[in-house]
């Protein structure tokens, strides 16, 4: 039944509904494939027995014509989402034995929709990284070329979808952690509007930027999954109490689009293949009747510096909770309370997480707060205003997801060079806008992505545009 693992989520739902195959068959096929491709290191935990049991129950519900929308479809969750009574490590030694006492809203919603959790995917430690190399559990390999990075921080989820270890996987995006790995692995990934999906039970990195989303094989599948993840949650005080549109319907609707192209940014793309592929993607859409407008985002080049103050500042505050006392790693070499704090944190966090805590601590410390943190927040306002202005005349904005395709594992040691991976993805996080990445071509024989940014709460529109693009091209097909 190996062909079942190649199917899209849409086709799996259809096949189960038509009883062409069973949940038991899909679940076992994926579990076998996961074992076969263990060396990719996509998973931190696998729930084999439980998944098999749930598949049998799903088949009973399907037989009774009592199936929930995602009944019996295997899903993988990024190991940042708490699942009750399951290990949730966030890719860190700090949480390597943390068994969550409660479940995240993302997990609960998808579980209630009938999806079967087959495992939890590997990730950069506390979602801090763009290559998956900061994981305490070792890096993930890119299934297309195992010498290369799958991207990060949701590299495990992107690689798992690409390697046919699941048809869709949850992920999170603080500065590009869904879109960049989606671009590197040739899959589709969407970060919805900030507040669209509950952050309850999703381990915090930078709370005003973190947003959960989905990685899937195509825009249609992403729309289905997002529909069942989204919605107001009383338990998350930043959750948006707004109607969730039916993305599944919207993705296929007949919609008019006006795409804004930030001309200057496109002209400054250094990689010729990335620039050519972007132009080619836009011309494919233009030929199909999509209108193109030039726009200006005059402050976008300040996104990276502003982000690398705001994200570390929020991270240093969020990660202050790891004190070695209530949960998480506790050092054994202690003789005082100070030792307990310092040694637990020093042993529990990896280098990149420490770097970000240090930067955040420095930027928030007396004498530096105004020059760094306050300044970055003001720039954040300018960037948001740029987008607000642009969305007065366009319905979505297009740019590349990344400046290059994937790079060799271990090849980037300079932190700033690594941070520059997120140069095109960060602006949407600063403004809280929905954004997605769809495969749009190749550079150096590896996939690259087209990024579509939508207006607030307008996920449906960028999914619709992405679906239109995927109907007109075959870049998203696994070959």
């Amino acid at each position: 039944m190996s062909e079942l693992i190649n199917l899209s989520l849409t086709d799996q739902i259809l096949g189960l509904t038509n009883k062409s195959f069973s949940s038991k068959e899909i679940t076992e096929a994926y579990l076998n494939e996961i074992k076969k491709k263990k060396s990719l290191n996509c998973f931190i935990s696998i729930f084999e027995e439980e998944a098999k049991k749930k598949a049998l129950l799903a088949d009973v519900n399907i037989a009774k014509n009592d199936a929930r929308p995602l009944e019996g479809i295997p899903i993988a969750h990024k190991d940042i989402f708490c699942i009750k009574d399951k290990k949730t490590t966030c890719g860190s030694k700090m949480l390597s034995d943390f068994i969550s006492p409660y479940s995240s809203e993302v997990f609960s919603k998808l579980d209630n929709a009938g999806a079967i959790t087959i495992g939890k995917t590997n990730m950069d430690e506390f979602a801090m990284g763009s290559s998956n190399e900061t994981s305490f559990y070792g890096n993930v390999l890119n299934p297309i070329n195992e010498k290369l990075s799958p991207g990060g921080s949701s590299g495990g989820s992107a690689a798992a979808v690409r390697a046919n270890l699941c048809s869709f996987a949850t992920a999170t995006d603080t500065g590009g952690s869904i879109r960049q790995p989606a671009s590197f692995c040739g899959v589709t990934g969407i970060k919805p509007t900030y507040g669209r999906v509950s952050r309850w039970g999703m381990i915090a990195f930078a709370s005003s930027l973190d947003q959960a989303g989905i990685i899937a094989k195509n825009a249609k599948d992403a729309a289905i999954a997002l529909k069942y993840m989204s919605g107001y949650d009383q338990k998350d005080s930043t959750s948006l109490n707004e109607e969730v549109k039916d993305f599944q319907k919207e993705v296929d609707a007949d919609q008019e689009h006006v795409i804004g192209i930030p001309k200057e940014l496109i002209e400054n793309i250094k990689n010729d293949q990335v620039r050519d592929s972007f132009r080619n993607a836009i011309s494919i859409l233009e030929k199909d009747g999509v209108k193109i407008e030039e726009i200006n985002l005059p402050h976008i080049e300040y996104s990276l510096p502003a982000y690398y103050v705001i994200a570390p500042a929020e991270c240093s505050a969020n990660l202050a909770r790891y004190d070695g006392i209530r949960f998480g790693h506790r050092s054994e070499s202690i003789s005082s309370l100070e030792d307990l704090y310092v040694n637990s944190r020093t042993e529990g966090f990896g280098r990149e997480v420490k770097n970000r805590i240090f930067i955040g601590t420095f930027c928030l410390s007396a004498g530096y707060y105004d020059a760094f943190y306050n300044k970055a927040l003001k720039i954040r306002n300018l960037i948001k205003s740029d987008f607000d202005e642009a969305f007065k005349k366009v319905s979505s904005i297009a740019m590349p997801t990344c400046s290059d395709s994937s790079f060799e594992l271990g090849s980037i040691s300079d932190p700033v060079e690594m941070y520059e991976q997120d140069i095109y993805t960060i602006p949407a996080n600063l403004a809280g806008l929905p954004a997605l990445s769809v495969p749009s071509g190749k550079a150096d024989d590896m996939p690259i992505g087209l990024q579509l940014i939508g207006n607030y709460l307008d996920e449906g529109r960028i999914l619709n545009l992405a679906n239109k693009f995927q109907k007109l091209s075959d870049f998203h097909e696994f070959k």
Partner: protein
Amino acid sequence: MKITKQDLKNISLLSKIKIDEDTSSSLIKDLESILTMVNKMDELDTSKINPLTHPIENTQTLREDIEKKDIEREKLQKLSKEKDSGFYLTPKVIE
């Protein structure tokens, strides 16, 4: 931007993370390179701009103040390596 050894000491003290002598020079290099990138912000005059702490302007939503018993102390305390009779244990603070 220069980071001094004293800056490192302050950062270490505030963040409660030890910085080893043998890694401090490479750490200074990393931090300086990050802060140099960050200093690009100075090109912009932001004196008349308000800071934006959060992307969404909605006020935070409040829920009804109803007592819920969904947090079980015993279950949460199971996560701690050292506890006794409902208390978390730490090394002695007061002699």
